[in-house]
């Protein structure tokens, strides 16, 4: 028999679903597009430069590590580094100097992903590791905001809705951003978080493509609503409404695009639910009682730490298994 006539010898199954890792990744990239376009509209070139810097740096860093580890450079095309770059950029303030963004992207890929062995092995969400690194390295630059182009004001410093809430007592002063603005994006904040609408459009696409686990966004939003709702009901003059909390800051992008990162979220259904509820509660706690106006990043990272334990201790019930009480 000629070698080219040989049959394939393999273990069952011989059918495979058409979905693949790059397909999922590119689905996510497409679903990010509405929000990216919105941020380009709101922040123009500043946004563009940040996106380019983050994505290119992420790719270069990834390539460097693949080269050092003598792995095939093919993996660059799986799209995961692009997502990391894009999502990192989306969590940066528009006024951040580009060189800082570059440092963030290097850290995201190097410390957030490659030191653990690359795609699939990381414990923490790489984009958020990058952001947390930047937030801690350059706290001032990371908390300096400019208004979107739609707000025709010209102040050097500017506060985000959550910043207002935390430091200016916005509820009592009545200066809280209107929900409409939060929804359409007429507010200051990180590139990707300004317009909830654009993010939700992308999220719908993700659901349509079944690329994410519904438990995560639903769990986060519900638990945050309940948590902030309780305080709001107790004292609506001091605490903002749950709807405000859901729409403000990085919650939407975090709940739909970052907490859902498959690598860093649990693999068991029960674990996933606990993870999501944990994020929601932590976001509420940090926003209401912590030192920072926003807690999405920290909450996701904190729950990332717990994910291995969740996986370990929430093994699903095997068919026919009787659990000991």
């Amino acid at each position, binding site marked *: 028999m000629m070698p080219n006539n040989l049959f394939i010898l393999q273990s069952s199954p011989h059918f495979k679903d058409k979905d693949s890792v790059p397909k999922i990744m590119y689905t996510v990239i497409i679903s990010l597009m509405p929000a990216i376009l919105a941020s380009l509209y709101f922040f123009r070139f500043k946004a563009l430069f940040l996106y380019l810097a983050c994505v290119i740096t992420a790719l270069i860093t990834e390539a460097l590590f693949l080269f050092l580890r003598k792995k095939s450079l093919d993996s660059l095309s799986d799209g995961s580094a692009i997502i990391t770059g894009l999502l990192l950029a989306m969590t940066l303030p528009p006024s951040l100097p580009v060189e800082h963004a570059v440092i963030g992207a290097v850290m995201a890929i190097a410390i957030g992903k490659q030191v653990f062995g690359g795609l699939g092995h990381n414990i923490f969400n790489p984009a958020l590791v990058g952001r947390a690194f930047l937030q801690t390295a350059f*706290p*001032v630059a990371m*908390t*300096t905001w400019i208004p979107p182009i739609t707000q025709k004001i010209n102040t*050097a*410093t500017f506060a985000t809705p959550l910043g207002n809430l935390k*430091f*200016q007592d916005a509820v009592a002063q009545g200066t809280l951003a209107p929900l409409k603005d939060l929804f359409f994006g007429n507010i200051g904040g990180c590139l990707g978080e300004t317009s909830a609408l654009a993010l939700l459009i992308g999220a719908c696409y993700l659901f349509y493509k079944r690329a994410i686990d519904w438990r995560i966004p639903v769990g986060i939003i519900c638990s945050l609503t309940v948590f902030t709702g309780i305080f709001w009901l107790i004292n609506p003059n001091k605490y903002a409404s749950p709807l405000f909390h859901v729409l403000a800051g990085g919650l939407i992008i975090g709940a739909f695009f970052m907490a859902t990162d498959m690598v860093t979220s649990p693999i068991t259904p029960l674990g996933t639910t606990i993870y999501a509820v944990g994020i929601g509660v932590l976001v509420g706690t940090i926003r209401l009682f912590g*030192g920072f106006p926003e807690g999405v990043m920290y909450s996701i990272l904190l729950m990332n730490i717990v994910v291995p334990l969740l996986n370990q201790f929430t093994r699903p019930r095997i068919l026919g298994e009787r659990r000991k009480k």
Partner: protein
Amino acid sequence: MSLSSRMVIVLTSVGLISGALLSTVGILTKERIALNKQLEIENAIITVVQGTHTSEIIYEEKDLVVYGSKDENNQLIGFAVYASGTGFQDKIILMYGTNPTFTKIYRLTILEQKETPGLGAKITDKDAFLQFWENKDSSQPLTLRKPAARSPEELSPFEVNTITGATISSESVLNIVRLSLGKLMSLKKEGKLGNEE
């Protein structure tokens, strides 16, 4: 000699020798260390109430100490208040000087803090923070200026500045001062602050 007694003797004598050595060192350094502490306080008092010649504790409780400052002529020129409270990370200990009626704050200095370096830790920095605390009018409640002013002239006498990116630390300092001042006022009303005047 049995093993047990050897164990006892050896360890006891090690303890003995160590005790002897340590007490020597302890005694030799004791004064110096006490002096260091005292110097630190005295320096702080001189910084916050300029012109102090002598000072003495006139009131003391946990986390609040008031030093009365007198000039060469033994005239009371003000109080140095040692106070502390929680900052962003940990305790902040500071000292500020007031005039004898507590209506004016001369100056502020930070004795101990563990705020974030480069950020909250700027509260120890003269240019970034302390200079904005010079000569404040405390007859009314002080307020925080946010966003931050660039120079002391921009501030009203009742306003103190924030450090950009470290609102919490700035606010904490203000709170410590506010709280201790309030306390002192009421103490004064009760006549517990000595009868200097």
